[in-house]
């Protein structure tokens, strides 16, 4: 799968990312690093431990990282979760929002793995 195909498969646009980050090699490098970024696991852990503050921070980080890499769906779902958790307490919606983030995250991760 090419980089362009990868973005298309997620319903995103390579051109948009390329305009911001300039180099394809740079994008590939940071997509690779994204796989080892701990934010998503921290988010899951925080939910398991009922730690809303850490969950908020992890969701916030994920939102920013995803946005920079043009993973806009993941960024949007993370953003929703971030706003939900901003008062640093879980709500009735939190779990459903997390599941949405997880779906988007897994889609992105599978795609990146297929790139390599």
């Amino acid at each position, binding site marked *: 799968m090419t980089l362009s195909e990868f973005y298309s498969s997620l319903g995103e646009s390579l051109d948009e990312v390329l*305009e911001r*980050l300039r180099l394809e090699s740079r994008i590939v490098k940071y997509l690779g*690093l994204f796989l080892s*970024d701990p934010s998503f696991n921290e988010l899951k852990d925080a939910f398991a431990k009922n730690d809303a503050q850490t969950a908020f*921070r992890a969701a916030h*980080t994920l939102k*920013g*990282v995803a*946005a*920079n890499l043009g993973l806009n769906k993941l960024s949007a779902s993370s953003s929703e979760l971030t706003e939900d958790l901003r008062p640093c307490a879980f709500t009735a919606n939190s779990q459903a929002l997390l599941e949405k983030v997880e779906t988007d995250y897994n889609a992105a991760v599978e795609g990146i793995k297929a790139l390599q």
Partner: protein
Amino acid sequence: MEERRPLILIVDDVAMNRALLSDILSDKYNIIEAQNGNEALMLLREKTSEIALVLLDMVMPEKDGMEVLAIMNKNGWISEIPVIMISGETAHSLVEGAYTLGVTDFIGRPFDEMVLKNRVNNTIRLYKKQKNLSNLVLNQIYEKTRNNSMMVTMLSHIVEFRNGESGMHVLHINTITEMLLRELLRRSRKYNISKNDIGIICTASSMHDIGKITIPDEILNKPGKLTPEEFNIMKGHTINCAQMLNAVPVGKDEPLMKYAYEICRWHHERWDGKGYPDGLKGDEIPIAAQIVSIADVYDALTSERCYKHAFTHEKALEMIHNNECGVFNPLLIECLDAIADKLVISLQTFDWSKQADKDFFYIADAMMNDQKHPIYNQMFRQFIDERKKSHFFESILDGMLFEYSYTPGVMKLSSKAAKKLGLPRTIIDENKPNEKSQENAATENLEKIKKILRRHTVPKDKPSLIKQTFNIDGKSIPCNVKVLQIWTKGQNEVPMLTSVYGHIHVLQ
């Protein structure tokens, strides 16, 4: 010389984010990274004057971006180091909060590489320009203050030279006036003087006797008691000085002129109205003149003059208390008593080479604490700290130290070195040594130091060790002298020796 690449501090808890920013910026900038707010603050403290820009994330564990900003505000760093916040944060109130805390710019995620680079470039360029300007101003102020202070010292020495006095009198008055003023400010708010006036009053105090240039030599330096007519002429130095100052065409409304006038005219007035020239009473006498008059009397009593020997510190205090030299403001006598012990030490360890720096510290202090236009300049603060530090170390390092600068040829000795070697603390090359102090031991020791200074060497950065005997307490004592030479390293020029620092270690 190639210009140093500006240093950027990237603060983000996410390794990937730091790497990406560093990737984009490292072709033009040097980068250091911090993983959280605490690390960032540590680096900021360590490299305050080096860091050209901070890229700050907002949401982080262990002190977030807002807390970092709050501390940068508290320490005054925010005025010198620009901060660009980079965050995915969109909450309006938080972004506004960041601006309120002084961030220069806010870049949202996802960011555009080109926009980021340009904002970083512009911000650094702008701040650099501002910093260069403020350095320029401060350097000039430093030079000017030193020159001003030297000028006043020179002029007042010229006046005293005619009296056959050492010139130490003016410097003593300066020290005593300062200490009395500080004590007075601590004790009372009665007089309308602020901390910023201290430096000005001290400078003005140097002028207190300039009126004496109008007094004929025969009267000024008469060894015996003056006749009533002669004393009347002598008293005229107060009025004469006031007239001279009135004739100065500039500075009529300047505080320095006002204080100089008050001090010159009224430093012989007394609290009970029995002084001269105007017979002012109590607080009719301006406070600056009151302070200088008591400082003048104390120093006159404790110094040797052509018509009297020197009294001890204790005797002088006693005489002042007993109104033997006229009556003084009781509040000022209280102040004098309070500073008495410190005063003896200060006068004994007085070092005129620090005088110029002292004046500068006053101005620097006033500028940095100016409510309306505070000056923030980290380099400048560090410079002041360095000067203070070296003064401090010199004062506690009880060693025999000397330093020599080549243009002009001036040697300075630490108080211990001066004492042991029998030499004055400052020796200027062209000066013929004072006949009185030209004892054999002193001349011999000076020659030995000069021999060390004349040694031909090649430029090197390490100190060298020289064995040399010195005449101490009439005995020839073997010593090790550690000498460090400072060379200028101009481009395409022959290196020149600018100064030498030495430490004399007595071998037991």
